[in-house]
């Protein structure tokens, strides 16, 4: 049983999804999905414990030896991503019943749970697999279910809205182009190496090959360069790196609150994980950063993305859209950390994946509470809500402080690592830009605080009350975690540092 944990982690939600469809009964489907999500969280925690104790775990599917069979390979980074993806999956699902009762038609609830489990399967599968083509399949599982989940935001009543449909369609088109680019990249790498296993491919890319009578390393051939170009563009599309983020704001704004919270916290982070795997495990950082100028490109794009997206967020009137633009900026911070290619920078990037997942998950759950009680996520409708829904508003403010990066919140830890990496690199300008962008975050968070606390509520809000406890508790678990990990960082930054050391192949 114990040695089959890696495959159980994937199989359990994968098998539970069709059961949800067969049950067709929303309470029972929720019970099954809830139990499965928490079970995957427990399994992921056990895996992380085993990886931290005994190092990398490999699991051969069906007993077929790698590199011929599909292999699951869990190192510190994989286990870390598995832990926070499954954890947020479980917490957000616990929040779901009352929120979707308001936002999704009752007869579609069992389908929501099935899609949610499939999306979770895909995201966990990407993080666990050691096989590139398997990664592509899991990527498509998670993406297809994500498109369907977003389209559930369209409804005929209370209040009617149909924009989710076009948002889902646009995401589908952009996501499929991104995934197909990744598929082209995988194909070209396979053409040169004859293997799909990531570890095996890494070895074979460093061997030499004869091209037109000239002997050169495989990773110097033009085919591999093209493969890497396709992969990095495809993955950047999936992780919504500026300027490939255009699908994200509409998708996050019009999806149901629960779906936004889940996808914003996990989907883009898992795409960042794919980028880390491709750069550091497969082609090697010296190839990506020394032979190719990926570090300079990532740095420029992420800095522009941080400033432009934060500024755009200031001018939004819909808070979900504002947080979506903020997500684009936060992806910029993560990419910035990768672009330093140093231990501090990479630690900052990995820990910010974790911290931002908690912060954005918590903020979007608080938005779910507002959407339930106010029936709207417009800034105008939130006037005076701080007095009517004090607990929800307070949770939002704590999350907002994390976005700014105030000390004693998780956001501060990430920014600390990023700024010290920038200073270590001698890039004062980058450090200054990170600090300035925090001020931009302060502006957009303050707009909400000011509206919620210091403006009079409109008349029709007289009956608005605090969100139900079943929704407040999951919100506070995530928001509380951002404060906890702002003070005690051994699990977040400590493990992230270990993962970064493994990726950079430096000994502590």
């Amino acid at each position: 049983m114990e040695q089959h944990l890696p495959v159980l982690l994937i199989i359990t939600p994968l098998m539970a999804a069709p059961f949800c469809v067969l049950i067709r009964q929303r309470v029972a489907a929720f019970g099954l999905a809830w139990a499965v999500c928490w079970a995957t969280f427990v399994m992921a925690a056990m895996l992380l414990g085993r990886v931290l104790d005994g190092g990398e775990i490999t699991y051969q599917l069906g007993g077929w030896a790698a590199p011929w069979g599909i292999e699951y390979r869990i190192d510190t980074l994989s286990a870390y991503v598995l832990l926070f993806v499954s954890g947020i999956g479980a917490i957000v699902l616990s929040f779901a019943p009352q929120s979707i009762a308001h936002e999704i038609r009752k007869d579609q609830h069992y389908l929501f749970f099935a899609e949610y489990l499939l999306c979770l399967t895909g995201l966990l599968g990407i993080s666990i697999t050691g096989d590139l083509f398997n990664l592509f399949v899991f990527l498509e599982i998670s993406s297809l279910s994500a498109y369907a989940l977003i389209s559930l935001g369209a409804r005929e009543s209370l209040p009617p809205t149909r924009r989710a449909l076009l948002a889902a369609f646009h995401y589908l088109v952009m996501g499929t182009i991104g995934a197909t680019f990744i598929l082209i990249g995988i194909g070209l790498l396979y053409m040169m190496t004859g293997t799909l296993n990531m570890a095996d491919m890494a070895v074979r890319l460093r061997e030499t090959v004869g091209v037109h009578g000239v002997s050169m390393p495989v990773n110097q051939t033009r085919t591999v360069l093209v493969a890497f170009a396709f992969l990095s563009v495809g993955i950047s599309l999936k992780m919504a790196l500026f300027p490939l983020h255009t699908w994200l704001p509409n998708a996050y704004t019009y999806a149901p609150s629960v779906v936004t919270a889940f996808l914003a916290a996990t989907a883009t982070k898992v795409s960042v994980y794919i980028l880390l795997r491709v750069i550091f495990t497969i082609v090697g950082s010296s190839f990506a950063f020394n032979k190719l100028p990926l570090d300079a490109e990532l740095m420029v794009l992420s800095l522009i993305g941080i400033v432009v997206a934060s500024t755009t967020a200031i001018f939004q009137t819909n808070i979900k859209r504002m947080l979506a633009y903020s997500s684009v900026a936060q992806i910029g911070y993560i990419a910035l950390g990768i672009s330093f290619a140093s231990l501090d920078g990479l630690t900052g990037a990995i820990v910010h994946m974790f911290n931002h997942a908690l912060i954005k998950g918590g903020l979007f759950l608080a938005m779910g509470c507002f959407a339930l009680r106010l029936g709207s996520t417009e800034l105008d409708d939130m006037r005076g809500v701080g007095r009517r829904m004090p607990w929800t508003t307070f949770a939002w403010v704590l999350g907002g402080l994390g976005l700014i990066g105030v000390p004693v919140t998780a956001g501060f830890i990430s920014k600390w690592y990023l700024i010290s990496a920038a200073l270590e690199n001698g890039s004062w300008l980058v450090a200054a830009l990170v600090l300035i962008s925090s001020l931009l975050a302060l502006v957009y968070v303050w707009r909400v605080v000011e509206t919620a606390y210091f403006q009079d509520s409109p008349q029709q809000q007289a009956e608005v009350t605090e969100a139900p406890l079943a929704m407040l508790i999951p919100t506070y678990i995530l928001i509380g975690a951002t404060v906890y990990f702002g003070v005690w960082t051994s699990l977040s930054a400590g493990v992230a540092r270990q993962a970064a050391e493994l990726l950079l192949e430096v000994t502590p």
Partner: protein
Amino acid sequence: MKEILGLYNYWIVVFLMMTGFYIVIARRNLIKKVIGLNIFQISVFLLYITMGKITGGTAPILPAKHFTTGQEFQTFSNPLPSVLILTAIVIGVATTALALALIVRIHEAYGTIEEDEILAQDREP
């Protein structure tokens, strides 16, 4: 000449890829976008199939003899890319089905599948 005829399949792949990509970007009709997306994906399928093929190679099935002439086969094509593409075709079909389902819902909600008209309707209060 060798660059053109010897890499015939790859030229077709690039041509189809760019055609599909252009249709996705340039067309405002949602169905045409899906058609473009399909052409784009299918070009990648061809790329995979082509790289597995060896001139004169046959399918790697045992026994390695022609069933009437009894001739022994020496070279075999790589079956793995074909297998991968079977999976990718399934994913492509699922994507297309989901996209068409979304278009049906969009048509029900807006009464049109022209992107410009949908966006114009959304701008109205």
